[in-house]
């Protein structure tokens, strides 16, 4: 009984940290640019497919370190893509109404899907976890897949790094001031366009990293981008859009609600996530935390 409880909690945690990995970059970009990037999930998906291709280039079983290196490389590649998109698309979206930029980035998600179908084909692809993460830990009579622990750990590490950057470093604090009042930041001599670009590149790199780290978590298909983004939307809007801490907390809350809800009402898996999103927003329309944190 206690074991079941722990297992459900662990599932919830894994889900929460996977979604947080996706949501982190999304909420960062919104916090600074006020663009809700629908295509974020698409770039997570591209990161995952790239990882698949790169890992298949290496011969023999992949170790954890090679896997991590590949994920970081994918982050860099998607970050560069982010730079290009910042210059070509986001640049023009700053003056546009929120909902229009949502639709423009939705168009980019469709482009991502088309690109993935062209390059990798429309069928499902699976990537096994790297050596060392493909087993399971035995805790009493509890089997815990070591890859789940890896996802949880990754989520926590990414959160701590981001949180440290935003709150403890100079550039993070500058970023916060740009988010709060770009006009004033500009007056104070901060190159806000450079900060915008930095945020976009960082956000996209986080998407690529998430894609790489989560690639072995599920089968890859061109619909993956859409699946990712819907869950990430729920998490960042409940957390308070633009707020990294809020997204972390919201991911945990929603992950737990959904995991335990699915145990008690197994006929409708996944339904509690949407109910929780709607319910929480009924009472706190601005989300759990507000502002960029």
């Amino acid at each position, binding site marked *: 009984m206690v074991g079941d409880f722990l297992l459900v909690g662990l599932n919830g945690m894994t889900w929460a940290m996977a979604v947080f990995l996706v949501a982190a970059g999304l909420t960062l970009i919104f916090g600074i640019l006020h663009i*809700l990037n629908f295509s974020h999930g698409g770039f997570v998906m591209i990161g995952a497919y790239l990882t698949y291709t790169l890992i298949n280039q290496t011969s023999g079983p992949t170790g954890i370190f090679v896997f991590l290196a590949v994920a970081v490389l994918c982050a860099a590649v998607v970050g560069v893509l982010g730079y290009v998109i910042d210059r070509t*698309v986001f640049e*023009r*979206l700053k003056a*546009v*109404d*929120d*909902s*229009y930029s*949502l*639709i*423009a980035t*939705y*168009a*980019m*998600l*469709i*482009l991502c*899907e*088309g*690109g*993935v*179908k*062209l*390059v990798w*084909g*429309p069928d499902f692809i699976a990537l096994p976890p790297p050596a060392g993460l493909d087993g399971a830990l035995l805790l009493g009579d509890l089997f815990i897949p070591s890859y789940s622990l890896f996802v949880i750990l990754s989520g926590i590490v990414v959160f701590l790094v981001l949180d440290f950057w935003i709150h403890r470093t100079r550039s993070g604090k500058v970023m916060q001031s740009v988010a709060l009042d770009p006009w004033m930041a500009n007056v104070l001599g901060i190159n806000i366009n450079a900060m915008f670009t930095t945020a976009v590149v960082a956000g996209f790199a986080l998407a690529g990293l998430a894609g790489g780290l989560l690639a072995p978590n599920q089968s890859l298909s061109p619909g993956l981008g*859409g699946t990712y983004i*819907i869950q990430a*939307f*729920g998490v960042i*809007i409940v957390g308070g*859009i633009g707020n990294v801490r809020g997204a972390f907390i919201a991911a945990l809350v929603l992950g737990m609600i959904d995991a335990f809800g699915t145990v008690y009402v197994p*006929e*409708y*898996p*996944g*339904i509690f996530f*949407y*109910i929780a*999103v*709607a319910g929480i*927003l*009924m009472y706190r*329309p601005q989300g759990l935390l507000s502002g960029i944190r």
Partner: protein
Amino acid sequence: MSRGQNTSSTTSAANAAILAAALVFATLPLWADKGLVFLAGIVMVQIVFAVSFNLMFGLTGLVSFGQAAFFAAGAYTAAWLGRAVPELPFLIFCLAGGLVGALLALLIGVVALRRASGIYFAILTLALGQLVYTLIGKSDALGREDGLVGIKRPVIDLFVGTLDLSIGDRYYYFLLVACGILLGLLWWVWHGQLGRLLAALRQDAERIRFFGVNVRRYREIAFIISGGVTALAGALVAPWSQIITPAIAHWSYSALPILFCLLGGASRFWGPAVGAIVFAGLEYATRTMVGVSELIVGGALLVVVLAMPGGIVGTLSLLARKLTKNGKERLNEQSA
């Protein structure tokens, strides 16, 4: 009501285009193959879907990302009733579908319009729409992921006799008439006092409050009409496609009317209709090319949002206005 003077020629051109399109749809079964006729039926329903969605989007100024929930509500209600109580007349099923859609819109509206600011409304309707999608996909009575199959085309009981719509192209013509009636209804709402009020509300919701208008209530009314008519369109499509799956409730189906509206032009009544037809053409032309069709659709949408905010219709009428203006100026120069 009088508008600008030089729009009469563009108006008559637009009327001619609408008439021509209606004629093409009406005569299609006479000269096109079965596949194309089927597609045309779907497009007609999608036009109603998109125009009713545009009541919220282009007219009232709110992006709902969960419109497919209403479409699916209508389709599933009508199809399920057709199975549960087949002895009742088909029109009752359709009306029930519309009613369920309107009720669902009322419910979602109460939640999502509490503090409707653009992006929150979009995400909340998205989440609630996905809730409906999940419920449908997991419900035994609605056939879970497989949906409902083998939906029969009905026999309609007219007072003078019965009309069997399962024969030949009869259901196509039935669709044509039904969609025409629904579009007429929407046209009335769009151009009437309510529509003009909603347009003003979109431009300045704060200002219209000082005309004694309860903004939230009128947004809800728009949402309910929009959801109800979308559901009616859904109810009509079920016997046409004869199979419905949860895909019609998925958020990517909600994105379709947004696409049509932006492509055609959201600020005009007929804009979404143009968008739906052009989109169907694009998809039909690229249907065999895996991946390319997404690239074309996504690319077109991105270009439209970034470069042609008025959509096809908006850009055309802007061009027309420029042309007539130039012509006028030239006339003035000559007379001077």
